[in-house]
């Protein structure tokens, strides 16, 4: 009985948390946000994908990531949309379409994207999608453009145990 009540409470709380997240939209991404994300996943492999609502090449990669996430629930994926906070509802809706509802979501919140790019990677000039692969030691491998599915699978196989 107690166990069932506990489960119900968990479900309810989980549902509330999910609902709150869905309503709140992505978190504002500013200078320092990437460090915050990395700290949160310290010692764990992580994929950070930079994308945007109007980027026509992004859906291909996001869908593949969504499928990978379904197959590997432990895979850490963080989405950062290079849009503006007012695009938040749109980015969240699209992420849901791609099966990435559970991935933490951020959206650029600086009128100067160069400032954010310099904080993220000085040599990123804004191409989207842009994918940051961090292994468990958080060594970075950055890729501009859609990452081929085979390469994503390889990375997952090599980094997720």
């Amino acid at each position, binding site marked *: 009985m107690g166990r069932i009540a506990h489960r119900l409470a968990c479900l309810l709380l989980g549902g509330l948390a999910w609902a709150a997240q869905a309503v709140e939209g992505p978190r504002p991404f500013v200078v320092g946000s990437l460090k915050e994300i990395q700290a949160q996943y310290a010692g764990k492999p992580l994929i950070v994908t930079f994308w945007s609502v109007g980027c*026509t090449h992004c*859906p291909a990669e996001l869908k593949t990531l969504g499928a990978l996430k379904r197959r590997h629930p432990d895979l850490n994926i963080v989405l950062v949309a290079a849009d503006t906070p007012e695009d938040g509802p749109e980015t969240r809706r699209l992420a849901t379409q791609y099966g990435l509802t559970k991935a933490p979501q951020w959206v650029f919140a600086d009128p100067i994207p160069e400032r954010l790019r310099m904080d993220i990677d000085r040599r990123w000039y804004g191409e989207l999608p842009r994918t940051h692969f961090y292994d468990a030691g958080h060594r970075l491998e950055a890729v501009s453009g859609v990452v081929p599915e085979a390469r994503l699978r390889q990375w997952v196989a090599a980094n997720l145990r």
Partner: protein
Amino acid sequence: MVRLHFRLPGLALACGLLLGALPAIAHEHPAATPMARNWQERLAAAKGSAVSVAADEQGRLWSVDMRQGNLWLSRSTDGGKTFADIGKVNAQPEAILADGQNRPQIAVHGQVVVVSWSQALPKLYSGHVRMARSEDGGISFAPPVIVNENREEIGHGFNAMKMDRQGNLALAWLDGRERSAAARKGVKYSGSSVYYATSSDFGKTWTANVKLADNSCECCRIGLAIGPDGGAVAQWRHLFAGGVRDFATAPLKPGAPVLRASEDGWEISACPHHGGDLAIDAGGRRHYVWFTGSAGKPGLFYRYAEGAQFSAPRAFGDLDAQAGHPTVFADGKQVAVVWREFDGQRYRLRRMQSSDRGETWSAPSTVAEAEGATDLPLFVQGAAQPLVAWGTAAGVRIIDLR
């Protein structure tokens, strides 16, 4: 003063006006329609971040900027210190793309003012190339016309327009009709295509639409210049075999060969949103500037060309300062190149100069700095001198490089 209000989503959304991956979004996801509507409504409600500036034969400066779906024509008689509104180019508001790579274009001579722009249509990533013309110094404009003869609700945009003092006008744009036709046949088509139309009477009459090239990149601005013979040449990011997005160039002549204009080898499944620029000097030498993100040798490059002979690319700009968006000007033996950098706090415009048609160059120097968001710099269309127009949070600035 024309004040700019920067809205960054436009930068990303402008890429939308393309034919590229859109069928994937438009057809597979039923929710794409509200998204497209949202896109269009926001465009119509917004102010564009791009201001385009042209000089007339007297040296007066004319600008167009987008406010709530209308393009506004303004004029400066003090070298660009102040601009005064003249009136609307399009009487009826419409969704107009006016930022970054996809921006309105203006050319002025005498009483003739020609303006072209990309109109966003309700279907996601679709649009028309529009044009309106005035013969009374911009007091009144004839109703806008659609330039693209193909009227499918697909991508037609990223229009570039240039005019010389003899009345030669060139208008080139990215067009989705080839991709659309291939899709109907179930054939895969890479990227977009480049189309153009020209006029030799200041835009009164135009040629039919002509295809310049298949398989262009989908959302980089086109570089366009008119040479001393009145003929125009375009430069665009092309989709070469293996997904390599380097530059190509061709004269706007039916059947003209397309030449490769850079051998960077940038293989990328993405849209870099980073076009190049082109100028032609009085001797017909073509001067090219561009950006590549190729792993081997990323950055900004300059080279010149005569016929099919290209000089070796010359690197410039600080790669660690987001160097990008180069623009080039040529007059006699003088060639000027300007680009944008960001030092972590503020944007700066950098320049380098050649006085021997691009053989040797000055060291780079800073010509202007700005706080807050800025537009990409562009040389003023039609100006006899190297005047750079740069949209900043404080308004459009005209910088005379002399």
